[in-house]
């Protein structure tokens, strides 16, 4: 059976004025949240292993803000941005990171294992690439149910050299699953540059044998991310005309991003040069979108300040909420190891 050409709305959505402001708000929320988490981590109020996504807020916002609550997102160890952009309440995410009983996962999961079923954040897994087959299974469920739900899986370029990736891509392509692979290619797999991992620089080229639609975009260019992802989303959602309903894919959006901070908080980063100030200005998705919006006359100086201030206020409120939340009860794990038959959780 030769591959068929997919049909569907191909027009790329453009980023308009209100959406730009909404995205800026989301990105500021993530940025402020993560900067605060870095400080909390240094003062040990947030413990364990923390991975920040500063520099990657544009991808989280442009992807997740186009999804519905019933579209599933699978994330990994660097999940704060995805969680917030997908709608997970910030105060409960902060509580989770601080190990409190009001945490998103009651303090059982922490930074690497955020789950918010209500908002379609189906899981962040702590082992590189482990989320890929999970997301394919989720997309299969959507397809079998005949809904128009689309599943998105975020992963880094480091996951691409793992077997999970290839096993999943083959089946997603073979079964035409409504799955969008969103690769955040920051050029480093943990502490190692991509060139030490593979001869193939672009992740889009790795899936070339499967010949499904794919694109590499500048992960700091939010309008480009918005329209590229929006186009794939609309096409993945469209019924495939088979009468079985369900969306169709897969697609790969490779976003070239910059990870401003180390692999984890505390990473001495001996493996790379510090970024020059000017380079960061060019790579910072938030600053770029803000400049762009100003140029279009969509944003005044006051509005910039008020968006940022609102984000900071929300973060401080989240910290207060979390501090007020009692530490998780030591024996709270009781009853959570196994699901009870016939219950939802």
């Amino acid at each position, binding site marked *: 059976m030769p591959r068929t050409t997919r049909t569907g709305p191909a027009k790329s959505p453009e980023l308009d004025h209100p959406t730009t402001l909404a995205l800026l708000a989301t990105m500021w929320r993530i940025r402020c949240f993560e900067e605060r988490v870095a400080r909390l981590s240094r003062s040990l109020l947030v*413990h*364990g*292993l923390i991975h920040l996504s500063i520099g990657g807020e544009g991808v989280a916002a442009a992807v997740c803000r186009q999804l519905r609550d019933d579209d599933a997102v699978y994330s990994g160890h660097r999940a704060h941005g995805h969680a917030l952009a997908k709608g997970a309440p910030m105060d409960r995410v902060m509580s*989770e990171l601080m*190990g*409190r009983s009001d*945490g998103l*996962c009651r*303090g*059982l*999961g*922490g*930074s*690497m*294992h955020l789950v918010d079923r209500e908002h379609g954040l189906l899981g962040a*897994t*702590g*082992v*590189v*690439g*482990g989320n890929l087959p999970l997301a394919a299974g989720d997309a299969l469920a959507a397809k079998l149910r005949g809904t128009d739900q689309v599943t998105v899986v975020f992963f880094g370029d*480091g*996951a691409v*050299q*793992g*077997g*999970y990736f290839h096993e999943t891509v083959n089946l997603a392509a073979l079964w035409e699953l409504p799955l969008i692979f969103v690769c955040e290619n920051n050029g480093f*797999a*943990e*502490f*190692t*540059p991509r060139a*030490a*991992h*593979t001869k193939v620089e672009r992740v889009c080229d790795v899936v070339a044998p499967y010949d499904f639609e794919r694109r590499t975009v500048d992960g700091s260019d939010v309008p480009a991310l918005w329209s590229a992802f929006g186009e794939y989303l609309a096409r993945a959602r469209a019924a495939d005309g088979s009468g079985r309903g369900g969306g169709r894919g897969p697609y790969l959006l490779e976003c070239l991003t910059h990870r401003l901070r180390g692999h984890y908080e505390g990473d001495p980063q*001996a*493996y790379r040069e510090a970024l020059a100030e000017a380079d960061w200005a060019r790579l910072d998705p938030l600053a770029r979108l803000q400049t762009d919006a100003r140029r279009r006359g969509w944003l005044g100086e006051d509005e910039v300040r008020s968006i940022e201030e609102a984000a900071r206020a929300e973060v401080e409120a989240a910290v207060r909420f979390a501090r007020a939340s009692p*530490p*998780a*009860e*030591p*024996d*709270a*794990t009781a009853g*959570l*190891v196994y699901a009870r038959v016939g219950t939802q959780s």
Partner: protein
Amino acid sequence: MAHELPYIAAINEAIQLEMARDDSVLYFGQNLATTENDEFVRAFGHDRVRVTPIAETAEIGMAVGAALAGLRPVVELYMAEFMLVAMNQVVNEAPRFRYMSGGRVKVPLVLKAGYGFTAGWAGQHTGSIYGMFLGIPGLKVALPATAADAKGLMATAIRDDNPVCFLHHYLLTLEPGEVPDGEYLVPFGQAQIRRAGGDVTIVATGWMVGKALAAAASLAAEGIEAEVIDPRTLAPLDTTTILTSVQKTGHVVLVDQAPRHAAASALIAGEIAEHGFSTLKAPIRQVTGLDVTVPYSEPMEAFVLPDDTKIAAAVRQVLGTAPVPA
């Protein structure tokens, strides 16, 4: 002569000494040797020291192949859980090859991984999963508890002609200790008596050894003398030293960080029950992790793990100086 080194540096010293001694020893894994300045790269070059992609099946499978071809690879896996990604190579390939060939080949390799990082690393990076590798014929399992043992067991692991899971405890990483200079080998299957005592035998591994010693110190104030035994390798397991101690004390507390039903202590309890039953004056007690995934939040994390208070309480129960809970 000895020098003081952190636990992790002692492991590195052993790998370096073995690599210098035998040019068939390789060291590769993720995030390893990424710069020319890396001490291993400078000493041994990129042929023998390599960074790999995040691809555990290939890393461990390639170690099997390189071992079949006569080399001695040490695979840096960082986290014991990452072996789960390549469980087939760990359990079903490396330890079985020699046997199925009727002894025609051997597979000398070391799987170096940390475990038990119960410091807020939550569910997927904290497991004490050595129980999964016990009872796999052909596979050896070493769990050093001190810097000296870390060095000596690693050197022995590299020289062993079989696949060895060398599992270092992450909470001991920076723990300093006296380490013998130069070549130093700790034999497999030889337990160490960390503290002598005649009232009760406590068996513990890894991070739990320190907890057991702390419990023993507090018990000594009550006039209870505990003997603390560290098996150092779980496969092979030195049952002789344990049974000899039990014969002397008649009381046993087994400590294990793993969840109760995946703990090596159950295996040791079985050996004692079968071979030392007549010397027991009270039932064996196990102090283990609870049967849960390790939770993230600190109070819950502490709740599910054994500690010195729980160990001391178990000792008092075994000796009849405290009531046994229902």
